[in-house]
């Protein structure tokens, strides 16, 4: 299915954090534990999907010269609505995410999807793309958050995994740890890609294709 492809591409092949290297700020700032990472991931998933739908719906009436301001207005509206709703019904999560919630407006990945995909596609594919990208973003956030929480705190989702024998290096849940973890993940992904390519080339050469 084509739609299924639109959805899955955001998970690994075009993962917003690790492949497109967009929205690294929240990936650094709110991934010190899995709970916050997941909360932020789901919020972004909601915003990106709604925005893709709205941009795709109005794509034919938006003047190309002012499309970016209009997209930003759309994103800002959705984020504000999300904030108001969270504040009213989930005040604790609202407090946890703090300032990063309002920063969702300027997350590059949301504007990028609006510009690259939603503005050129019909509503349903745009929605699926938003869901996929949001899921990929959430996956990335949870991966980083999980690694950082396990190494830096010895726990996962608040559940203590490693006993008192383990002395967590605090730096991993501080900002530098975010940089280091993201760097290592991207490095590992590139390395595995390179190895795969080399292997393919080798088998191709062995097959006598060159």
């Amino acid at each position, binding site marked *: 299915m084509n739609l299924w492809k639109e959805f899955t591409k955001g998970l690994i092949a075009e993962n917003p954090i690790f492949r497109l290297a967009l929205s690294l700020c929240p990936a650094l700032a709110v991934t*010190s534990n899995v709970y916050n990472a997941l909360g932020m991931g789901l919020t972004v998933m909601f915003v990106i999907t709604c925005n893709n739908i709205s941009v795709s719906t109005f794509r034919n009436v938006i003047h190309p*010269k002012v499309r970016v301001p*209009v997209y930003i*207005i759309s994103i800002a509206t959705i984020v504000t609505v999300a904030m108001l709703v969270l504040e009213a*019904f989930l005040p604790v999560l609202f407090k946890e995410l703090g*300032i990063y919630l309002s920063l969702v407006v300027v997350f590059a990945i949301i504007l990028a999807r609006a510009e690259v995909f939603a503005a050129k596609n019909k509503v349903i594919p745009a929605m699926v793309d938003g869901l996929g990208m949001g899921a990929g973003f959430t996956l990335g956030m949870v991966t980083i958050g999980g690694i950082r929480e396990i190494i830096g705190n010895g726990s996962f989702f608040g559940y203590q995994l490693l006993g008192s024998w383990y002395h967590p290096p605090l730096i991993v849940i501080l900002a530098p740890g975010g940089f280091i973890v993201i760097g290592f993940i991207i490095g590992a992904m590139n390395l595995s890609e390179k190895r795969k390519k080399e292997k393919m080339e080798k088998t191709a050469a062995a097959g006598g294709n060159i």
Partner: protein
Amino acid sequence: MTHTDHNDNSMFRITLNLTLAAFLSGVIIAVVFYLTAPIAEIQRIKMKEQSMKELIPEATSFSPIQGKEEWFKAEKDGQLLAYLILASEKGFDGHVKMFVGATPDQKVIGFKVLSHKETPGLGDQAFKPKFADQFTGKGYQQLELVKIQEEGKITAVTGATITSRAVTNGIKHALVELEKYLNESK
């Protein structure tokens, strides 16, 4: 309106586009705000009262102190139990806002953080009982922060010295202010 004729009246269309987008956005936000604002307000008051209640569980009423912003008297059957003082102190990242509870003879009962931007999982350890309980029963003269445990002093949270210091200083300032206020009103 189609894409083909936008050159003729593009100025008009641009204006219309932006105006409509902004108008629509304004309407949506206004409607959502109209619906959620009362609920959020109730939640806020509830959280504030709850944090006051958590500090002084026995109290039955909280009345604001005149002339002081966000200062409260916690009372039970007309008898003064404690003072609640809003303190704000610069932490690792932005201000830590908290309620400081103090007995009428200016000893710490406890504190409750209302808002902060400290590092999750690290700085906010300074708001948990392990650190917070050290303040109980101390006057401001005894509030001294040390990194390595020492009898009668406040031991900072590992790796969160700055937040620990912010909490300690916030409480200290609140108590000093309280003493000043009580001396003046005597």
